[in-house]
């Protein structure tokens, strides 16, 4: 086995057939080239696809590369394939999701303190949609569930990873206000489960 003569073509083939985002590392292994070379080929390919008139674009989603249909053609894609594929997340769920995305891992109690309302329903919906998942338990009375976002979340918002979230006013650094509860949020996260 050896490296392919046309690296860009090989990268295109791998990403084309993949059902899940392919990482640069994975491609580098099978193509027997350095990761930087793969990265370069991916960028080249991205530029090719970004030429106007293409129906497909190359996206970095959830840590890997995938082809996505261009949003201009969403309507036609829906017509041919079964409709109702992607659903908008409602405002109430979105607010809860935003809190989790920026504050994960976080318990239901903490979410409710921030929102000032119950979050049970929103959490249920978000778990059902696979946008959040249980990532551990907080080591305190009742061992409450800690929630975090999933790769489906990254997918839904077209993000390569969680750091691509918009960061207005440095919300990620600015700690939440002291809401009168012991701030042991990050300790329990040690025992992460799942992926």
């Amino acid at each position, binding site marked *: 086995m050896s490296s392919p003569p046309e690296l860009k073509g090989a990268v295109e083939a791998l990403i084309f057939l*993949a*059902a*899940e985002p392919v990482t640069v590392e994975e491609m580098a292994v099978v193509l027997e080239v350095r990761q930087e070379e793969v990265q370069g080929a991916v960028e080249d390919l991205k530029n090719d696809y970004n030429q106007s008139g293409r129906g497909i*674009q190359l*996206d970095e*989603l959830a840590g890997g590369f*995938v*082809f*996505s*249909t*261009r*949003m*201009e*053609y*969403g*309507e036609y*894609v829906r*017509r*041919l*394939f*079964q409709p*109702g*594929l*992607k*659903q*908008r*997340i409602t*405002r*109430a769920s*979105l*607010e809860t*999701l*935003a*809190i989790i*995305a*920026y504050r994960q891992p976080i318990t239901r109690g903490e979410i409710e*303190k*921030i*929102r*000032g*309302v*119950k979050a049970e329903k929103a959490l249920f919906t978000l778990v059902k949609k*696979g946008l959040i998942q249980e990532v551990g338990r907080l080591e305190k009375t009742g061992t409450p569930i800690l929630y975090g976002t999933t790769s*489906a979340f990254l*997918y*839904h*918002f*077209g*993000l390569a990873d969680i750091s691509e*979230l*918009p960061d*207005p*006013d440095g*919300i990620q650094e*600015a700690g*939440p*206000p*002291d*809401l*009168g509860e012991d701030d042991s949020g990050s300790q329990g996260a040690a025992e992460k489960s799942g992926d």
Partner: protein
Amino acid sequence: MEYNLKLDSFEGPLDLLIHLIEKNQLDISEISLHKITSQYLDYLNQMEEMDLEIASEFLILAAQLLQLKTRNLLPGRKAKNPGPPPQPDLIKRLFFYRQIKKVTGLLDDIQSRRIDAYNRDSDHLIYFLSRYEDLEKQRENPLEGINLQQLVQAYNRACIDSRARQKKEKETTPNWYEFEGETFTVTEKMEEIIDYCSNYPDGFSFGKMVQDKKNPQEKVVSFLALLELIKSRKVKIARGAQAEKLIIKGGMA
């Protein structure tokens, strides 16, 4: 009315507070909270008037607002505590909640931009190509331009027509009517309508179909059958020359 807002458009009491603060063009501060306390309470009253169940969270916040307000009214307290009073917990919460609202909006923008882009492995994407005819059917509205009222009118009219005809017949025919335990099934009537459709390719009125039916039960069952066929898109309805007359056409199946 001043608060003619959609009541469920607030995600909670904090959302409502932020709204009131912004509406009054205030900053988040204790003074602002004092200013909008009465507006907040008005809002709750309005909810009550509209018989909406006020979530307990709204009431708890009302109590907190009132507590903040009364604390400042108490004499002597201020003198004992020189310097600025500690920032109420509520203020901090509001600041943070406002940030969350902002990012929620940003996420909503992102999802709007992203929602039309599809990937192969989208869990929701069902690889199931609809047959072209199915697609056409999906797009066609079998009740194009017809509202429920017109449908009911057509039914009523058909009933009146046939009643008038029966009355006429009664005058000319022997004065008896046999009530037999006849039963009519929707399936049977659906078949009958389909038959009519093939006999009248240009369409026919519902009245025409039920005009000979003397038993009201039969008419009702026929109407149910028609609704069933519309639902399963086996027939479609068009407006006739007279507005209240609806024309049934087959051929969608």
